[in-house]
C-alpha cells in the first residue's frame, strides 16, 4: 500500500511545488484512484462472509447486533458505490509531502478571502479526512453559507500517520507529540506564519499537545473533546473507587458518565493500546472491520447512536446535515482499501499521554461541548484544564463526530470560537 500510494503520488506530480520533486519537502499533488479489482474483491469478501450466530440479547449490550450488520453488509456488497465518495474527495485539492521521514497526505483548500485565518483540523479514530469534507466549503467560503467573509479560513486537513493516504510508520515512535510537531512543520511548509488548530477524538489530543508545545505561529486551539477531567476524578475512575466528595452535581453526573464508559465501553481501546497487531481479523474481514469501526460509542449509545441512526438514512445522495448510511460506509471502505485497520490502531499503542487530562496548555483554548459526546465537560473543569479559555459553548446538537454529523453547527462553532484570535 505504501509503495502504491507513493507510485500514485509520483504519477500525480504536477506543477505548483514549492520544492523540487526529488526533495523530501516537495509538495506533490494526489488523487485517490483505487483499482476496480480492489472494489470487486471487497464486494466478493462481503458477500462471502462467514457469520456468527445472533447475539443472545435483544438489545445492543453485546455489541453490534447481527441483523444490523447483515443489513449493512447486504447493501455494502451490492448497491453501495465508493466511486461517489472518491469523486467527492478528489474534488478537493490533495497533496502528499514528507515530514520527519513519513509521507503525510492532506487536503489544502485556500479561501477566496485572502485575509482568511489558516486552520488545521485533525480527525481521530475511527475517523479520516472523510469526516471533515462537509465543513470545507462552509469554512473556506463562508459567504455562501450565511456567514461573513471575516469568518473565512484557509483549511488544511491532514491524514494522521497510519491513516487514510498518509504513510504507515514502519517503526515505532509516531506518538501524538510527534504528530503535533509534524503539523506545525506542515503549516510552516505551506507558508502559514500564523494559524489555529482544531480537533476531536485523537485530533483533540493532538491539538492539546500542539497547545502545550506552543509554537509561536500557533494562535490558539479549538477542541470538541476537551481533556478536562480533574486528576482526582480520573484516579477514582481508574481505581473503581468512590468519587471525590466535593463535586458539584453537574460534575458528579459527568464523572459518573465517564466511569460507566470506562467500565463497559473501553475494551476496543484497551485491546488496541496493548496488542494492536493481534487484530488480524480487521484487515482480513470486511464485516469484522465494519463492526469494529462502528462500535465506538458516543454519549447516547454504543454503537454510537449517530451511526446506527444513520444506517436508517438510506439516501444515496449527499446529505448536508444528516449522517447517512453512505457516510458510514465511505469511511469504513476507506479503511479497508487503504488497509489501515492495524496501522491506525497503533496510535493507541503509541500514546503515553492521559487522554482526558490536558496539562500545560497555556495558549488560548476554545471548547465546544456536544450533547451526544462521551461526556460534557462542565465549564468549571474546562476553566481549570485550560487557563486561557477564550470560548466555551454547549452546542445544540451533535455527538462524537460533530463535523461529520452536524457540519453547520460545527462550522458555526469554529467561526465563533476563533473570532477573538483574528486581527
Amino acid at each position, binding site marked *: 500500500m505504501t509503495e502504491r500510494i507513493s507510485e500514485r503520488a509520483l504519477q500525480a506530480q504536477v506543477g505548483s511545488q514549492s520544492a523540487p520533486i526529488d526533495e523530501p519537502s516537495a509538495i506533490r499533488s494526489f488523487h485517490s484512484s483505487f483499482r476496480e479489482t480492489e472494489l470487486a474483491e471487497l464486494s466478493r469478501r462481503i458477500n462471502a462472509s*462467514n457469520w456468527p450466530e445472533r447475539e*443472545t440479547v435483544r438489545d445492543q449490550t453485546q455489541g453490534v447486533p447481527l441483523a444490523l450488520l447483515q443489513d449493512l453488509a447486504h447493501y455494502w456488497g451490492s448497491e453501495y458505490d465508493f466511486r461517489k465518495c472518491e469523486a467527492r474527495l478528489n474534488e478537493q485539492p490533495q497533496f502528499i509531502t514528507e515530514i520527519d521521514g513519513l509521507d503525510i497526505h492532506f487536503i489544502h483548500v485556500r479561501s477566496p478571502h485572502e485575509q482568511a485565518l489558516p486552520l488545521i483540523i485533525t480527525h481521530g479514530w475511527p475517523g479520516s479526512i472523510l469526516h471533515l469534507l462537509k465543513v470545507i466549503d462552509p469554512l473556506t467560503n463562508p459567504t455562501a453559507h450565511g456567514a461573513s467573509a471575516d469568518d473565512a479560513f484557509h483549511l488544511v486537513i491532514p491524514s494522521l500517520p497510519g491513516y487514510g493516504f498518509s504513510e504507515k510508520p514502519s517503526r515505532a515512535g509516531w506518538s501524538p507529540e510527534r504528530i503535533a510537531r509534524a503539523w506545525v512543520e506542515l503549516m510552516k511548509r505551506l507558508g502559514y506564519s500564523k494559524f489555529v488548530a482544531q480537533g476531536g477524538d485523537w485530533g483533540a489530543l493532538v491539538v492539546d499537545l500542539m497547545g502545550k508545545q506552543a509554537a509561536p505561529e500557533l494562535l490558539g486551539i479549538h477542541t470538541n473533546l476537551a481533556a478536562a477531567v480533574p486528576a482526582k476524578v480520573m484516579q477514582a475512575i481508574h*481505581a473503581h473507587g468512590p468519587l471525590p466528595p466535593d463535586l458539584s452535581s453537574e460534575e458528579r453526573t459527568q464523572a459518573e458518565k465517564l466511569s460507566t464508559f470506562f467500565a463497559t465501553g*473501553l*475494551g476496543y481501546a484497551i485491546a488496541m493500546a496493548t496488542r494492536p497487531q493481534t487484530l*488480524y481479523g480487521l484487515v482480513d474481514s470486511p464485516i469484522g472491520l465494519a463492526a*469494529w469501526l462502528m462500535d465506538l460509542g458516543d454519549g447516547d449509545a454504543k454503537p454510537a447512536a449517530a451511526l446506527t441512526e444513520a444506517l436508517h438514512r438510506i439516501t444515496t445522495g449527499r446529505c448536508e446535515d444528516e449522517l447517512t448510511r453512505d457516510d458510514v460506509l465511505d469511511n469504513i471502505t476507506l479503511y479497508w482499501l487503504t488497509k489501515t485497520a492495524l496501522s491506525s490502531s497503533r496510535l493507541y499503542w503509541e500514546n503515553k499521554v492521559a487522554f482526558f487530562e490536558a496539562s500545560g496548555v497555556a495558549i488560548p483554548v476554545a471548547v465546544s461541548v456536544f450533547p451526544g459526546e462521551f461526556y460534557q465537560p462542565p465549564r468549571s473543569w474546562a476553566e481549570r484544564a485550560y487557563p486561557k479559555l477564550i470560548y466555551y459553548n454547549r452546542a445544540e446538537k451533535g455527538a462524537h463526530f460533530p463535523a461529520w454529523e452536524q457540519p453547520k453547527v460545527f462550522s458555526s462553532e469554529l467561526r465563533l470560537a476563533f473570532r477573538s484570535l483574528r486581527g
Partner: protein
Amino acid sequence: MQHSEAKTTRSATAIPHLDAVTLGASTPSGSTRAAIRPFKSTFPESALAELQRRVRATNWPDKETVDDDSQGVQLATMKKLAQYWSTDYDWRKIEARLNEFPSFITEIDGLDIHFLHVRSQHEGALPVIITHGWPGSVIEQLKNIDPLVNPTAHGGTAADAFDVVIPSIPGYGFSGKPTESGWDCPRIARAWTTLMKRLGYTRYVAQGGDWGALITEQLGVQAAPELLGIHVNLPSALPEEVLKALAAGAGAPAGLSGEEARAFERLDYFFKKGLGYAIEMSNRPQTLYGIADSPVGLAAWFCDHDILSYRLKARAFDGNPGGLTRDDVLDNITFAWLTNTAISSGRLYHENKLPFFVPMGVKIPIAVSAFPDEIYQIPRSWAERAYPRLIHYNRLEQGGHFAAWEQPKLLVQEMRTAFGLLR
C-alpha cells in the same frame, strides 16, 4: 430480508453432522430429552477446503513496528502459521483421535451438552469431571485421558484410576450455543452436577484450568454432596490487598515475600498489558465478527491469551516447539473455526459476573497446582488464606496456562497425588 435469512440459516447449520448423527442414534423425543446420544465428529470435506481457501486468500496487514512481541502476535509468526495451516496441516488426524473416545450429547437445562466419557477398566476408579477454558476445548484434554483411565500403562497403579468426563462448555465445540443470555459459571457448574448424576456417579471429583477453574470452584461453592473435592491449576485466590493494589495500578502492597512479589509483578503486567482481549469480549463479544469471518483473525486472537502461552505457541511455528506442537495449536483453532464458535465462546466473558481471581468461598477440599508460566504462580500463603481446606499445594518446575495440553504428564501426576487423598 431474504438475504439475512439465507445467511442466518447457513450459520445455524454450521455443524451439519449434528443432525445426521442424532438421527442415526437415539433421537430424543420430548419425553427423553435426558437421553444420552452417541456423537461422532465428521466435518464435511467442503468445510475443510473452504477453510484452506480462506487462509490462502488472507488479506495481510503491514508488519508490526517493533522487533518484539510487544504489539501482539507478530506478522512473521502468523504467516508461518497460515502457510502450514493451508498446506500440510491435517485436521482429520485430530478428528480421528477425538473419535477414538466415546463421545455423547445430552440436553441439560434446555441446552445440548457435548461430552467425552471414558470409563476405566479398574473397579473403584474415581470419577472426575474435567473442564477446559478459553480459548480451549475438549481437544486440550485428550492427552490426559489414557493416563487417567488406564494408569497401569502410564507409570501409575490401579488405585490411581479415574473414570473421565470431559464436557464442552456451552457455546464451545460441539455443545449447543445458548440463544438466550444466562449461561454463566454457576449455571454451568449446576449443569455439570446434573450431568454427573445422569451418568450415575454418586461420588466424584472435579478439575479445571482457566474458565474450567472458575467453573470447578463454583462446583466447590455449590458443594453438591456427591462432590468430594476439586483441583484447579488457575486458582481464584488473590488476597484483598493484592486485588486493591492491582485495581489501583499503583504498585505492590507492602510486606510481600519474594514469591508473592513475583506473583504480583506477573499479575500487574497481565492487568496492564494482557487483558485487552478479555475486556473486549466481556464488553462487546458480538462485535468480534472478524474472528468469525477470518481464519487468521481467529488464529491470532486465540494465540494471544497471555504473553507466556503466546510465546509457547509462537515457538511451535519457529521450529522450536516446547510443550505444544504446531498441530496442537492449529487443532484447537480449527475446531473453533469449524464449529463457528469464535463468538459464542467469547460470550462467556460477557456472561461472567465473577471478578477474575477473587476468592469465591470454596469450603470443600481443594488441591492447587502452581505452574511457573501461568498468568501468576500462586504462592502457598495466598492459597492457604483463600481455601480453608487446602489438601494439596505444589509448585511445578515447568508448564504454563494450558497445563493439561502442554504438560499432560505433570498434570496427571498432580491429579493422582491430590485426589489420592480423597479416595
